[in-house]
């Protein structure tokens, strides 16, 4: 594998992990992190709360416009082995941002990448999928089944 596609694969892995972690509770991530023996790490950037302007598109698919802001927390963590992880999440839970940053650093680590996927990301992804499936099934039960009334004698 050349270095560009390797980079793209790692980026896709990190995005996929973040997409799961952003939906998890801080407590769930912390509890699962405790099941692996973590390498030394430190805050590269202390967690910080701020705003991100959320954008929509005219007509859903046209030019972008500013819809309104959302609170976002972010952090950056560095492992002793040098990997730098970033954590971003909607809301103001700075501990969650830090935990996501730590996971992101671990995902990039040769020694911990597989363990993080197995012990943290995969089970949280499973939970998320179960939750989404249940919501989709509840919505599906409210789907209208049209039927045509037969008028007159036929």
């Amino acid at each position, binding site marked *: 594998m050349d270095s560009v596609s390797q980079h793209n694969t790692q980026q896709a892995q990190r995005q996929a992990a973040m997409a799961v972690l952003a939906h998890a509770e801080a407590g769930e991530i912390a509890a699962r992190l405790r099941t692996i023996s973590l390498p030394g790490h430190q805050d590269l950037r202390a967690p910080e709360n701020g*705003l*991100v*302007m959320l954008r929509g598109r005219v007509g859903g698919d*046209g030019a972008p416009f500013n819809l309104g802001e959302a*609170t976002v927390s972010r952090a950056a963590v560095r492992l002793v082995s040098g990997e730098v992880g970033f954590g971003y999440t*909607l809301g103001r839970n700075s501990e969650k941002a830090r935990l996501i940053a730590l996971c992101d650093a671990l995902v990039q680590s040769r020694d911990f990448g597989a363990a993080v996927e197995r012990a943290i990301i995969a089970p949280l992804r499973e939970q998320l999928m179960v939750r989404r*499936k249940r919501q989709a*099934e509840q*919505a*599906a039960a409210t789907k209208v089944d049209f039927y045509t009334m037969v008028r007159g004698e036929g």
Partner: protein
Amino acid sequence: MYVAVKGGERAIENAHRLLADARRGDQSVPELSLDQISEQLGLAVDRVMSEGSLYDRELAALAIKQARGDLIEAIFLARAFRATLPRFGASEPVDTGAMRVRRRVSATFKDIPGGQILGPTFDYTHRLLDPSLAEGFVPEAPATSEASTAPTPRVTDILGRDGLIESSPQAEEGATIGDLTREPLNFPADRDLRLQNLARGDEGFLLAMGYSTQRGYGRNHPFVGEIRFGEVEVEFVGEDVGFAVPLGAIELTECQMVNQFKGSATEAPCFTRGYGLAFGQSERKTMSMALVDRALRARELGEEALAPAQDEEFVLSHSDNVQATGFVEHLKLPHYVDFQSELGLLRKLRKEFAEASLEADASDGMKEAAE
């Protein structure tokens, strides 16, 4: 001119203590938690997030609690909170076509791919007060059925395939996206700024404006092409990270209004569009927004703009309930000096009037005497 009120400090302090007590109400009644507000008054939270222009359920619930349920006051609090945080940047535009739909209805087509999904709605309820909700109500578990994995394309996309509806305007190369939180609104305003203004505009105001178009003040023959409500993913390109970072999901309501045709010598007639988008489940808001968005396109579509809802300066200058309440409510603050000068002027005018009357009486008297 406003005057510092000296000597009011203690009265103000005690008034705020009294407010805190009134806010809490009878202390033998259990206190509301933010979770209770967020979970059980969810649509109030949605409205505060939309019009407060700040997506944060917990903060919106706190604002509602602090404002004693006065939603405009809560919206004011949410807007003020914004100013305390730095802005990291702007998200990638959300893709409502990829929404995990919890409700999705069309009034124009019965059979749409993905189907009509009613979701949690007040529609078709009988609007009779339900005494069983007063206490101890435990709802039945929601029904479930197998969910389809088929995509749910927007109804406007389906109409668009046959060219029956105008396509959405695309961004021009290098165009900046207007932001009225950064620069004051100028007229004429482009569609991006108009939509931002309407998205945070007062629901009641937009409802009245939208309603006025239906009653003939800027009629544009609307149909609900589609309303959808559900979760969309948000991504943000962190400069430090170097790629689009998933931030989690937000709930949005989108309304696509399909309106009567336009066409010209060179273009075949097609339906026109009005668009509404808001945080949370905000159907009345997004429908009103879509009606008003369409009405405000009168100039662009070569229509006569005679009705209030088509007057961009009128609509956009009066849609913001924080601005509106600020200016209306400031009237109750002390205006003693202003009023003193008005009073002085009035006294002078009355004196002049009295003197003029006296003179007139006197000259009438002289006339009578002369006759």
